[in-house]
């Protein structure tokens, strides 16, 4: 698929299109500020466990999720903050979950790596590399079985390309023509191992292309390109009832986990990170919006400040929320 850069002039852009662009900008900025706060809160010990931030990769989730309908579902791996925020989960509940509070998305029982928000169609973040691929394939199976018209987005990292489960599921999804979009966020590394050292074939779209359904590589740093690809891919999956595989080329600016102390330096250079920052998805959309006269710098600045306020409010809410009561320990092992 050739996702061409859009060069529409302000005058030719509809009101809806303008709103959609600003909404994507708002979401990416919200995710960026949210993640930056998480990084800080982690170092203050307010957030525990492993914390994987989405900074740099915002365009992938935001571009794809912008094209969903209410009957669609999203599942992802453990780097999952961006998915729920793009889906419209309440940032206060997301932050409260990270703080382990009972007001969190999962009552303080999931933490960063295993969010669920059914009300916003998020059926789970999964912390076993590759695990999400199986569960998401099953969700798409159910959508097809029940003929809901819905499709499933399944997000995971380049490291999961090497899980046997991926290949089992791609085969069954291809056999059974399931309405699922597999999106590998190729951010160049699985922890500190570069793709060249973990995948015999480094073109991951190519590697996934033998299961009888389309497969494509896209620029994951430009949200307009992601959105355009997503629009076509999701429409294809919905109408043709077959899977699609997408390799989104992206990059994470921060360490694999917030606890990482060897990065940059050990497995990648500061210069490499700086090179990728030049393609920053937020700055790219900012430039596009200004150069095409779609909005003013002041408007974008206001969006930015509003996002900061939302994050501050989320942090305040999380701080002030109570821990789960100890009885919660025994709840939800079984369903009545």
């Amino acid at each position, binding site marked *: 698929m050739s996702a061409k850069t859009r060069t529409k002039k302000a005058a030719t852009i509809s009101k809806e299109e303008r709103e959609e662009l600003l909404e994507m900008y708002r979401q990416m900025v919200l995710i960026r500020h949210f993640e930056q706060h998480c990084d800080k809160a982690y170092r203050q010990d307010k957030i525990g466990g492993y914390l994987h931030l989405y900074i740099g990769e915002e365009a992938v989730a935001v571009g794809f999720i912008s094209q969903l309908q209410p009957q669609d579902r999203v599942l992802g791996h453990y780097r999952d903050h961006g998915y729920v925020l793009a889906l419209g989960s309440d940032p206060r509940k997301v932050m409260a979950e990270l703080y382990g509070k009972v007001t969190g998305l999962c009552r303080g*029982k999931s933490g960063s790596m295993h969010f669920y928000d059914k009300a916003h169609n998020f059926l789970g973040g999964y912390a076993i590399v590759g*695990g999400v691929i199986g569960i998401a*394939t099953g969700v798409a199976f159910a959508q097809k079985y029940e003929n809901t018209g819905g499709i499933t987005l399944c997000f995971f990292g380049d490291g999961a390309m090497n899980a046997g489960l991926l290949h089992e599921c791609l085969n069954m999804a291809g056999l059974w023509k399931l309405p699922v979009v597999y999106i590998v966020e190729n951010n160049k590394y699985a922890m500190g191992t570069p793709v060249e050292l973990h995948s015999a074939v480094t073109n991951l779209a190519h590697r996934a292309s033998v299961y009888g359904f389309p497969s494509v590589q896209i620029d994951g740093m430009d949200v307009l390109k992601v959105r355009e690809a997503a629009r076509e891919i999701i429409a294809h999956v919905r109408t043709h009832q077959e899977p699609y595989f997408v390799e989104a080329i992206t990059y994470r600016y921060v360490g694999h986990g917030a606890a990482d102390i060897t990065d940059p330096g050990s497995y990648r250079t500061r210069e490499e990170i700086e090179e990728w920052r030049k393609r920053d998805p937020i700055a790219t959309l900012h430039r596009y919006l200004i150069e095409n006269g779609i909005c003013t710098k002041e408007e974008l600045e206001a969006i930015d400040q509003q996002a900061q306020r939302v994050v501050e409010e989320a942090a305040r809410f999380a701080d002030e929320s109570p821990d789960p009561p100890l009885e919660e320990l025994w709840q939800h092992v079984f369903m009545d």
Partner: protein
Amino acid sequence: MAIKLFREALREALIEEMDRDERVFLMGEDIGRYQGSFRVTEGLFQKYGPQRVWDTPISEPGFIAIAIGAAIEGLRPVVEVMTWSFAFLAMDQIVNHAAKILYKSGGACPVPLVIRGPAGPGRQLAAQHSHSFELWMAHAPGLKVVLPSTPADAKGLLKTAIRDNNPVMFIEHPQLYLTRGEVPEDEYTIPLGVADIKRQGRDVSVITYSRGVLVAQQAAERLQQEGIEVEIIDLRTLVPCDWDTVFNSIRKTHRAIALHDDWRYAGFGAEIAAQVQEHAFDWLDAPVLRVAGADVPMPYNKHLERAAYPQVEDVITAVKQVLA
């Protein structure tokens, strides 16, 4: 009541639940066109078609994961594993995913799933097809574990398992598929977590499940001729487990034996012994004994195989030891 084969009773449960609820579907290797390795699903592909009976590739992690995903989206999958030995490929899906999703979602995402199939020795299938893994399943909080011993129990428990909103591991002993028993004509279910006293006796309680019940019954017949009355507690489900029935029996007999085919070391018998000493110690007149599988990979040779899992004589010996 009609006399039916164990596997027919299972099939009836599948049919009744599939007729009752469109969301129930079957998935597994060669369960459809081939009719199932143990013919539990015989005729169901013809009856329900490929939309309800799914023949899968040989991808246990993949299709068990797909069933879990289908369950969180609201379907009620019943997955057949050709043997539980193969479910080991999917331990990550079963333990790390199915068992934990409800909890880690803070109660939001139930997983109404049944995984069923054979496990156990006795057909010279040797090391990689013969073991019974109920203990591994019972160990993971969030999984229910069911092991029926009779056709009637098999049917009633499987129907309940399919209606349950949790992942239920339903383990069938291959030596039982061709056993017969009375099965009620009218619709019925059997709750999970209710043990059944399969034989009343005053002298010793044999706490068991699955094939162990049949072994205990044969031992009890012979011991009765020597004036020893054995009480047989069929746990039927290990999770949840009906410990009250166990403790009440021991209050009467004061002696207990745990019996199962699964390996002895850290097997479910160890849990039985621990529970009994924690909750019924004062009633015991003798230590709890275990009669269980030998701690070896299952050998092929017929005589060695027979020696590797409990036989009637082993139970008789243990009963006499505990009464001595």
